[in-house]
């Protein structure tokens, strides 16, 4: 995985382009321009809609830039929009998502990195059996395991709580993260591990003193992967938490698809952008590491 993705974007391989304004180039750049526009447009529409007042929306078309920029929809979406039950906007959901995402990301990465390390360097009999089950588990539709987990969480008294959801995210993040870390640790030179054992370092000593300091890039990839995945989750949030602890995606859906009151499209779009802001920021800041994260799931190692 690591090798594949690191040389993935070294340079284009296609045939060499000819003159700057050849028919081929006009076609090529023309197509790419239209395509890029198509992908960018929804984001543009979200932004301009969220900055218009409702009267302007009713009159104009959705592509037109706002005549009069107003941030009121954003304020309303954040603190006043109604979900059908309450009217305190997205803020509650946002903070719930923060409280879900941070511990889930930390816990899932700690557990998966230690798992991956054990699988890469300390293979014990049967380890690969569990790992195979884990990888196959990644393909099982979540719906199959939804209810048994409800029962398990209820048994340990965590059903409906944020802690319960954190455990669920840790469990379902485990296959891909364990694979990611296992492949990365396997790609580190084995002799380093042997040298550390001769030097008297044990399981945890080697993990903390040798492996972790060498693995910052892969930890970053894992953080990106998990923050985006957990922030964007809807299904687990709606199943395993209650209305008080709904994550942001669930609040957003409740606000926008609430059947009560007049539809305020500008507020809806503001709420939608706010919800997408965290993963979008991570995406635009992390660049190639994000690509490496998603490719890690696909390119086997």
């Amino acid at each position: 995985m690591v090798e594949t993705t690191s040389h993935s974007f070294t340079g284009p391989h296609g045939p060499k382009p000819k003159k700057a304004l050849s028919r081929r180039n006009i076609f090529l750049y023309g197509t790419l321009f239209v395509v890029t526009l198509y992908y960018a447009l929804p984001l543009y529409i979200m932004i301009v809609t969220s900055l218009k007042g409702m009267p302007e929306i009713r009159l104009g078309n959705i592509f037109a830039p706002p005549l009069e920029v107003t941030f009121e929809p954003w304020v309303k979406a954040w603190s006043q929009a109604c979900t059908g039950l309450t009217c305190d906007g997205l803020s509650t959901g946002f903070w719930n998502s923060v409280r879900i995402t941070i511990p889930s990301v930390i816990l899932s990465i700690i557990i998966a990195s230690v798992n991956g390390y054990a699988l890469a360097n300390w293979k014990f009999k049967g380890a690969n059996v569990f790992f195979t089950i884990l990888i196959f588990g990644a393909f099982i539709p979540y719906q199959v395991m939804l209810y048994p987990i409800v029962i398990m969480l209820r048994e340990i008294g965590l059903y409906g709580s944020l802690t319960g959801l954190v455990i669920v995210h840790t469990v379902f993040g485990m296959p891909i993260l364990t694979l990611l870390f296992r492949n990365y640790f396997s790609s580190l030179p084995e002799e380093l591990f042997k040298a550390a054992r001769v030097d008297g370092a044990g399981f945890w000593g080697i993990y903390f003193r040798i492996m972790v300091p060498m693995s910052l890039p892969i930890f970053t990839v894992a953080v990106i992967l998990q923050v985006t995945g957990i922030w964007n989750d809807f299904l687990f949030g709606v199943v395993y938490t209650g209305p008080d602890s709904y994550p942001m995606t669930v609040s957003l859906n409740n606000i926008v698809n609430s059947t009560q009151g007049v539809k305020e499209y500008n507020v809806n779009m503001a709420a939608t952008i706010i919800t997408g802001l965290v993963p979008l920021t991570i995406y635009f800041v992390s660049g190639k590491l994000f690509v490496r994260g998603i490719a890690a799931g696909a390119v086997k190692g």
Partner: protein
Amino acid sequence: MTNSVEIKKLDLHFGAVKVLQDLNLDIGKGEFLVLLGSSGCGKSTLLNCIAGLLDVSGGQIHINGTNVTWAEPSERGIGMVFQSYALYPQMTVEGNLSFGLKNAKLPKAEIESRVKRASEILQIEPLLKRKPAALSGGQRQRVAIGRALVRDVDVFLFDEPLSNLDAKLRADLRVEIKRLHHSLQNTMIYVTHDQIEAMTLADRIAIMRGGQIMQLGSPDEIYGRPVNKYVADFIGSPSMNFLDGRIQGGAFHVGDLSIPLDGYDFAGGSPVDADATIGIRPEHVVTGELVGNAAFQVDVEVSLIEPTGSDTLIDCTVAGNHFRVRMDGQSRVSLGEKLRIGINPSMASLFDAKSELRL
């Protein structure tokens, strides 16, 4: 207690694949033992077993009289040097040297003095604050040796330590390792596939093949009296010439040639009649004025000339077999030239045709 390392009936298998089989080996105190063989022969595996980095399937390993078969690597009193240096990239040279000592919870002053002593011996004091990435290959391997040195142990394990270095550095470090052994006088077990390293460093060489030791002996014995055809072929460059024929009446017959075997030291004491292979090293074939003294002489035609500077290798045909001769680099020969060569049977090796064992 004269043995430093004793290996008794060692077995190792991964599933059905037998990697080491019923292996016995005693290594004396202060001895430099080289494990030599081609890749996949089990030499590195054996070293890893001695280090405790692989769990054995059966048998025992004793170091300094203690059974360490199931002890942790760090408890065995060994230090190890790896092919890829295996330096911890995030630590400085000093950190690399002291990591093991810190794990052993040695007092700070002790750690400092040991690191100082080792870096003096290896002349790496100016590098102590640098990270491995800022070192050259030779410097890295010195630090790796230093990491074994600071452990203050009796047994050093080397796993192909020079294979990643270029030819010139390899020769330099080889000399340094030999010097280090002379001054430290500790036991060294050294794995390599390079026979020059083996011959120059070893007190004894163990030639391994298929998880077993084929021959254990001094470099002279291995070179001069190989126990079987495999060892004879493996050791020496260019490799030994082999002629298949038959021993009868105290002479070796191949084609219409008959090589008298007077002076050959038969394993059984006296000549036997058997189908056999005679092995003659290219460097043991004599030419020029010396031919007159040789017990067997034959005329050959030069079919290929390979000058190497110090020597010149000649290809020719003896009794229908391809045959190589090593001549002095100063000799002048030309292609197609007729040449008289001489062979002294006392320098040759005879192997049984079936068992391939030395006769």
